[in-house]
């Protein structure tokens, strides 16, 4: 039986499909586009807020079912995405970068750089345009993690960032001869951060991830003063000790009015590749509990796996592949992070105007 439906019928039917993160239906969110209604055929596009949306397949399926319930046999759903920018003020240093995310930890050795690099790769795999800024001037490790031989060049008075695995990268490592150390104090660090943001040709980016040095120092403060960060991700191991220190980083961001996008538990557990035995070397679940207690989102657990280190040492981030347990873990964190960014951007109030 062919059913003649109107565009309005379709839109009304689609109002049952809710985005669970943004807590509104996809029609009032303005996600439904390019609606075509024919004889017994309906086609439309759902434009999500990020290509990394973890729920996109479910949303498409629910939307299709909702329209089919009207009696339409042929329902075509296309998925696209348009990353919304964080609310920006005028005269921003990097106006073409839509979202800036600081990846921080309370102390060193929790694997923050590995998490930053792999989450960046996972986001890029979904189709987002991603940059990775290594702000650890004293111990810059990002270029080694990402591999390759690309070097920055100067183009029209600005730095053209090297690109590896589709990601634009900037790091002090590119400017240090092997074995040399940076021995600088505050004002030089501040100037470097300003230049790594304003004097680099980042181009249009959906997400610029920043690998911060550990702790709460000059560089964290510089970044928080120079740009209005979209938010911060806290990386911690499961140990209580790591979390107590991590809470200092959290307190710092709260004082600077930077939203905490979530907590990631790295080195969450170890699974022996030979016999499959699982050992929780650093404990397990401490970060998830802390996130719950502090009322922050928990973005996921990353297991401890020798393959992560082996491939990182070889300049091949494991998130390039999402079929392994650890690859999946990074992709899940990336999806959760993208969702939190969308939520924060939908909640932030209007621009601050100065006149």
């Amino acid at each position, binding site marked *: 039986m062919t059913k003649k439906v109107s565009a309005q019928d379709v839109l009304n039917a689609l109002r049952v499909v809710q985005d669970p993160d943004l807590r509104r239906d996809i029609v009032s969110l303005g996600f439904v586009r390019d609606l075509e209604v024919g004889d017994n055929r309906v086609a439309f596009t759902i434009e999500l807020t990020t290509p990394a949306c973890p729920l996109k397949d479910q949303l498409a399926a629910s939307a299709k079912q909702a329209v089919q319930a009207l009696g339409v046999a042929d329902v075509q759903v296309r998925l696209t995405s348009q990353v919304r920018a964080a609310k920006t*003020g005028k*005269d921003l240093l990097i106006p073409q970068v839509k979202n800036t995310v600081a990846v921080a930890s309370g102390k060193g050795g929790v694997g923050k750089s590995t998490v930053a690099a792999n989450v960046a790769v996972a986001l890029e795999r979904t189709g987002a345009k991603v940059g990775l800024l290594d702000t650890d001037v004293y111990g810059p490790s990002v270029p080694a993690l990402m591999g390759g031989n690309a070097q920055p060049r100067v183009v029209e008075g600005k730095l053209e960032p090297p690109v590896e695995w589709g990601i634009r990268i900037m790091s002090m490592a590119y400017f240090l001869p092997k074995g040399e150390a940076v021995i600088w104090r505050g004002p030089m660090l501040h100037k470097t951060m300003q230049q790594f943001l304003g004097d680099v040709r980042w181009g249009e980016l959906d997400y610029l991830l920043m690998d911060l040095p550990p702790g709460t120092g000059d560089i964290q403060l510089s970044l*928080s*003063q*120079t*740009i*209005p*960060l979209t938010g911060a991700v806290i990386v911690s191991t499961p140990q209580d000790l790591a979390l107590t220190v991590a809470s200092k980083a959290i307190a710092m961001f*709260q*004082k*600077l*009015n*930077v*939203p*905490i*996008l979530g907590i990631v538990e790295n080195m969450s557990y170890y699974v022996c590749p030979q016999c499959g035995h699982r050992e929780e070397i650093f404990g397990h679940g401490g970060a998830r509990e802390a996130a719950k207690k502090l*009322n*922050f*989102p928990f973005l996921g657990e990353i297991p401890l796996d020798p393959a992560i280190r082996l491939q990182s040492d070889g300049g091949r981030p494991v998130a390039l592949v999402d079929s392994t347990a650890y690859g999946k873990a990074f992709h899940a964190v990336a999806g959760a992070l993208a969702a*939190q960014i969308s*939520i*924060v951007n939908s*909640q932030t*109030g*209007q621009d*601050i*105007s*100065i*006149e």
Partner: protein
Amino acid sequence: MITSLQVTPNKIKLAGGNDTLTIEWSDGHLSAYPYRYLRDGCPCANCSEAGARTPTADSPFPILGAKPLRPERAELVGRYAVQIYWSDGHSAGIYPFAFLRESCPCVDCMVKGKDRPCA
């Protein structure tokens, strides 16, 4: 809740009338800061140094063409503060929103009896 963000200004007016800088806050509150009060409460390291804070004043010889005190421009600092560029040349002060809100000199805020940072 994801963020527990601070109350932030929606609109900052440098010339808010009666020689005040006004702020319309995101929770609806309205603050009006007399220029002298705000300048004297400058939180920069030099002004905050113990024993260093001496009140400023308009020139006693206005005929000599000294500029009256006013904020000439202001810029946002990250997500948490505003930097004010005063007509007397001083601009080192970064005023956090939290500090500004605590310093609001309106009757309601004063009655709440908080410590006054801009004493």
